[in-house]
């Protein structure tokens, strides 16, 4: 993975979002083991302290859990998994609305286009 991070948003926040997207898309499965902090730091080319902070945040949100000295795992809690998905959808819709509003079009005008694009996107 060679990804670029936004320079004006905390890197740990971006790492957390990336994990949420992977969980929501099914790329990461409930109960699946997370890479070690060091592995992830190397993979993402970021500071291990930043990864540590991202893991702490995900633990706090209940997205991952750690038992003893075992590697952290993705939660199997359906409530949390559903919440993650809702959160991502809300964020994306908010961004869309924010981008479209200044153009001053009615919802009725964009609805057909939105539907068409939604259906044609794989």
């Amino acid at each position, binding site marked *: 993975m060679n990804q670029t991070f936004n320079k004006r948003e905390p890197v740990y926040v971006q790492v957390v979002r990336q994990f949420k997207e992977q969980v929501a898309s099914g790329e990461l499965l409930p109960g699946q083991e997370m890479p070690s902090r060091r592995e992830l730091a190397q993979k993402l080319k970021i500071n291990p*302290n930043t990864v540590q902070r991202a893991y702490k945040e995900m633990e706090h949100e209940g997205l991952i859990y750690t038992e003893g000295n075992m590697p952290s795992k993705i939660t199997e809690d359906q409530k949390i998994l559903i919440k993650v998905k809702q959160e991502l959808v809300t964020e994306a819709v908010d961004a869309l609305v924010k981008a479209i509003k200044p153009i001053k079009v009615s919802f009725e005008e964009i609805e057909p286009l939105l539907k068409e694009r939604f259906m044609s996107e794989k």
Partner: protein
Amino acid sequence: MIEVKNVVKKYGRKSVLKDVSFTAQKGEVTCLIGINGTGKTTILNAIMNLVPINSGEILIDNQKLSKESYETVAFIPDTIITMPSMTIGQAMTFMRDFYDSWNQERADELLGFFRLKAEDKISSLSKGNTAKVNILLGLALDVDYLLMDEPFSGIDVFSREEIANAFTDYLVEDKGVIITTHEIGDVEHLIDHVVLIDEGTIVKSFAAEEAREEGKSIVDIMREVLVR
């Protein structure tokens, strides 16, 4: 922790460092940023006791620099220290004989990582490869603190990327790193702490992630305090 306390350095009547204080924590990457000629290199030289300071104090893990504490710190200058007539292999042997903390296994790994050849003469290398040899020699030392002076300066973009990669791959988590740079681009996401220096004075010291919490990049902050 490396503590630089109220350090003053004068060359003749010219003050190069004017009451400089900051700390660099173990397990963190601290970046000294400033436009050229602001005293960054002098700070590293002072930490290594390569230049005498006029006043102030520098402590490494609460101790003044001694032979013992010196063994816990490695310094990678921006110009190669070994003789250019040496081959890379000879330079590695030289380092092995000179430093107890030399880690041959890691050195060999890094040689492969950078795709360098041990039999190549250092004087025949490109600027990018010379920088890689420099980084190799520093990262192969098992030390607590690593000081790097402009590791990304004046080399091509791909070499810079490789060095940044080696940096994350071989950076032991509990190592304390101080790097100087005037070009933040490649290392922006590797840095924990930023110390901005201007004309021998520290103008701002902050955590990179905290700046981003406020929606600012490191360069945004530099622009705020350095460009007047």
